[in-house]
């Protein structure tokens, strides 16, 4: 047993690897991927409803989206967890992350739809396209292209928010690190490891997204 005050203990680091990596692969990544998928779809639904639905509906959706966006995901997680006790915490987490981030993404879609040039809309009228075809074949494909980088950035920020899941007892990466630290009376290696994994996964992705942003800007 080494001195508690040793700055760094490699043996402890390698012992912390399996549980922390397991939390990363089985929970953190899974929640990020499924949560992003839900958020990407629901966000488009909110944006379309706010734009196309008749008044009472679009107004209600607008307020709902603002309300979810301006309140903490931690409280939303706790609420959903205790309100649906029969559903397992992991599913609750995926759905709440999906809904919370869909409210950010709806803004991205709104901006993307607004950025489709007026001439495109006029062209669909000139070609007497139906509303359905206008959206499906002309507006959405162009709007989506411009929104990909922003959606990627939200996926990264969701990834870094996944430790909030520990409030409903889900053992994701940081919670796993904390539990390991508690069991061994030594936190530095496990928590640092979790930080390094976050940095290694999110920094290259954000560089890629920045490059994609630049390429899209040149293409226009």
């Amino acid at each position, binding site marked *: 047993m080494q001195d508690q005050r040793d700055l760094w203990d490699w043996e402890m680091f390698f012992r912390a690897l399996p549980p922390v990596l397991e939390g990363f692969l089985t929970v953190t990544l899974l929640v990020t991927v499924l949560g992003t998928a839900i958020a990407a779809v629901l966000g488009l639904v909110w944006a379309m409803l706010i734009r196309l639905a008749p008044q009472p509906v679009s107004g209600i959706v607008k307020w709902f989206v603002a309300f979810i966006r301006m309140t903490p995901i931690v409280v939303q997680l*706790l609420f959903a967890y*205790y309100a649906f006790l029969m559903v397992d915490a992991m599913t609750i987490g995926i759905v709440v992350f999906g809904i919370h981030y869909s409210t950010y993404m709806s803004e991205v879609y709104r901006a993307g739809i607004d950025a489709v040039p007026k001439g495109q809309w006029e062209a669909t009228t000139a070609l007497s396209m139906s509303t359905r075809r206008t959206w499906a074949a002309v507006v959405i494909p162009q709007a989506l292209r411009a929104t990909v980088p922003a959606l990627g950035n939200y996926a990264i920020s969701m990834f870094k928010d996944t430790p909030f899941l520990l409030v409903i007892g889900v053992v994701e990466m*940081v919670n796993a690190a904390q539990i390991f630290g508690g069991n061994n009376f030594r936190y530095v290696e496990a*928590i640092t490891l*979790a930080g*390094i994994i976050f940095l290694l996964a999110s*920094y290259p992705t954000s560089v890629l997204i920045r490059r994609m942003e630049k390429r899209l800007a040149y293409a226009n």
Partner: protein
Amino acid sequence: MLENIQATVEAWPFLARGLWVTIQLTVLGSALALVLAIILGLMAGAPARALSVPGRIIIEFFRGTSLVVQLFFIFFVLPQFGIDLPGMVVGVLALGLNYGAYAAEVVRGSIASVPRGQWEATTALSMSPVHRMRRVIFPQAWALMIPSLASLMVHLLKGTAIVSVILLQDFTFHLDQLRRVTDTTWAYAVVGLVGYFVLALALTLVMNALEARAKHRLGRGPSLREILSPTPTAKDSLSTAGRGF
């Protein structure tokens, strides 16, 4: 329903104490974040690589590792090396460092987007770099950065809800106490989410006022007093900016 209201009234002193902790965390965390953001933003945007490279590394480090990792590092790891900080300081430090790094990007971007002519004019007037930043560039960048800083502040407010995991008794902590005597929907959805929503709205209003003031000082848009006065002045009806308040 009636029991819920009664229980909430009885729990109110605790909820108010929790709200106060949340407000303190938000205000102090934002203040620290702002100071760090200005220092790091100026560093990252500096022409000298000796400043910009360390600035970039610090920003990417605190942005790239999650808020909760930073919180746990300060709460669990530092005491192991004899640095034992009170809970409130741990919360403010983690929030300030994390959101400060995000805000530094806003500061850097806003300074970079002050028009080139303004920079050239300061050179023509042979202003010193400090004088240029303080009197010409920063006031203009400040008006540009307030909307983004406002949305980061709302994020910071929402981020404070995690501090109950390091045993701080904030609003979320007391909501959990309330849940034990009322029902879940009441405690978390009605009292909790609405409470945070009202705080976030108040914060947004304050930041809108700050933006109007910053624009007015640049000679764009009416002053705060003009906006808030019940009788529109002649000057007010001439200007168009800042009316959405």
